[in-house]
């Protein structure tokens, strides 16, 4: 009895699509995040360049990464919910 999940999970036909989407979105975010780290390591002066409204690249990129995480999360959830509704025909709670 100890090797199953804590609650019963119904059969989910949308798993392959969700997994693929998750990996694609993970890679996109990782590239944007890596860009931030790369600029910090190799062009640190560029981080202080004022870009817009007198705000520098470090602030805009950092805030952008935080906001991007939220936006991509919402897009991912919307797409996954659609896959589940379509492929499971309302199986999932």
């Amino acid at each position: 009895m100890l090797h199953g999940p804590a609650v019963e999970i119904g059969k989910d036909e949308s798993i392959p699509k969700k997994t693929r989407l998750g990996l694609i979105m993970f890679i996109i975010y990782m590239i944007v995040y890596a860009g931030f780290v790369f600029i910090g390591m190799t062009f640190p002066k560029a981080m202080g360049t004022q870009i817009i409204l007198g705000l520098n690249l470090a602030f805009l990129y950092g805030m952008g990464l935080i906001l991007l995480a939220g936006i991509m999360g919402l897009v991912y959830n919307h797409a996954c919910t659609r896959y589940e509704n379509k492929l499971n025909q309302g199986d999932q709670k």
Partner: protein
Amino acid sequence: MIYQVSPIAIVIFLIFVASVLGLSFFFARKAKSASGYYAAGGQIHWAVNGIAFAGDYLSAASFLGICGMIAFYGYDGFLYSIGYLAGWVVALFVVAEPLKRMGKYTFADALDAKFNSRGIKLTAAISTLVVSIFYLIPQMVGAGALVTPLLGLPHWVGVLIVGSVVILIVATAGMTSTTYVQFIKGALLICFSLAIVIFLLNKGLKKTPNDDYHRFITLPVTVAGGTVTEVADGTYRIAGQHQEKGLTFVKLEKAGIPSWWKLTADESAPALEETLSIVVEKSGETLYNGAPKEARKFFQVGHLSKIVVDGKEVEATGPVGPFEYIKRIEDAEIVRFSKTAFSFRGEAVTLYHQTPTSGKEIMKPGLYYKLDKGSTFWSRLDFLSLMLALFLGTSALPHILIRYYTVPSQRAARKSTIVAIASIGFFYILTLYMGTGAMINGCLDVQDSNMSAPLLAKTFGITLFSIISAIAFATILGTVSGLIVAASGAVAHDLMDKYLKIEMTEKAKVRAGRLAAVAVGIVAIVLGIIFEGQNVNFLVGLAFAIAASANLPAIFMLLFWKKTTARGIAWAISVGMVASLAIILLSPTMFEIYGLPPAQAPIPLRNPGIISIPLGFITLIAASLLTKKKRTQES
């Protein structure tokens, strides 16, 4: 620093702790089974669970540590906010749903769902225990730091209070209780942090932070051949001079009271700048700015020396918007306080001297992690290592992972994570404002960066300070509760029940979990007292690095590489854990703690992730391929 204790702070604190305990006992009735104790019966609503995630995650490191690091080092502290939040993307896109499908109560369950291997049970349980304990230490240290200004109690009492209350909470209630405590606390923390930022923006930037702020004086002097020979103000007598790291410090005496000053770099008009000093005399007595601690002469600091609006220097900006605030900071000059320590005629002298820093330097990386001026290959690699561990560490933290099992479905796990990302992301944006706000509002305790955010709140009134300190204390209570549940699960469920196969009834399992919680709690109290004064963020970074090195390769490869074997997982966890621990123990930071020269550290990295995380992946791949081959040959 000596703080004045406020009765209102004590009352609010006691109300909070009583409320938390009351809530825990109320929900304790629901924890009659193992499922109820470890996973809240899997029936927590996703929105509640999402905010509880935030409550778990926004620990002492986030509220106290990050704000403090920003207050002392500017944008480099904000790197932690970015990295901690980015880690949630890995959790959402890669880990959340598969783990929900695989697991039951603990991280070890999830890993073992496919193999039923004793090796995995043992290594995953040990890894959970190690990461949880390393994560517990900074929480306890943070608790100790908080009680000093809040209740006027020594550090060890704070640690003892948190430890005892949490043991009581966890030993009586379990995951349902901790979830609701985390939910309330997470929501309150975000709301009141927002309140601080609104007050801060409404106040704007001022060169004189408040009416009580210390007026730093400068004394014109005569210098001959690099030596200060005369002070223009004849009431001061020169008592000595010392060179350290290219800076000249001068000891003066006035009416028998000693003080330390820094010689300015301007050779055309040499002058001495006031410093804050802590001197341990030959007799063993410690003087704070030349007087015993009780004399309260050791003041709080942090101010702006230049504010520019539309190209003109001004004294204050008045209320500003969130973007204008950042722009004004970038254009301003801020006086930070750098630490220099040395021995002088048998006295141990620690000075905190004024370091005017351009806002442009403060608002980009480089003050703590050297990337530009004074950078080396290793300092840049250290930055990369930190960002890697933060990115990959979140989804490998056991106390975060177990929260996926408290919701009823994969969809709820996903939605919980999105609520967590939104609320945690919003809070992390606030940290940049709170940290820089503490830096310029004359509230820094130079001895303890961890207190920056609560002390900023204090500048807006004792009530806000009391509430935010009580919430911070509850934050620690909640985080420690979650960690102890995870650690007790590792001992009672993974080790006793599944590895050692001790026959137990459901009731006995819950009792074993509670006993394990008490034991882990006691260990945490002891370590929290031992690690007093250590940097909270450094200690949390340690836990992240160990989690990312030991757990993430196992989780990631199990989900995405079909050739992964049980032995591969067990070896990867062991090697990742041992390697990250070894690198940390041999790092320059630990050498400083040992009292050895940091330059002698064999590995010049403060963050181990860049070595230990790839090592974990390589070990898993190699061990899996080797054991797969062996199995094929045998068959």
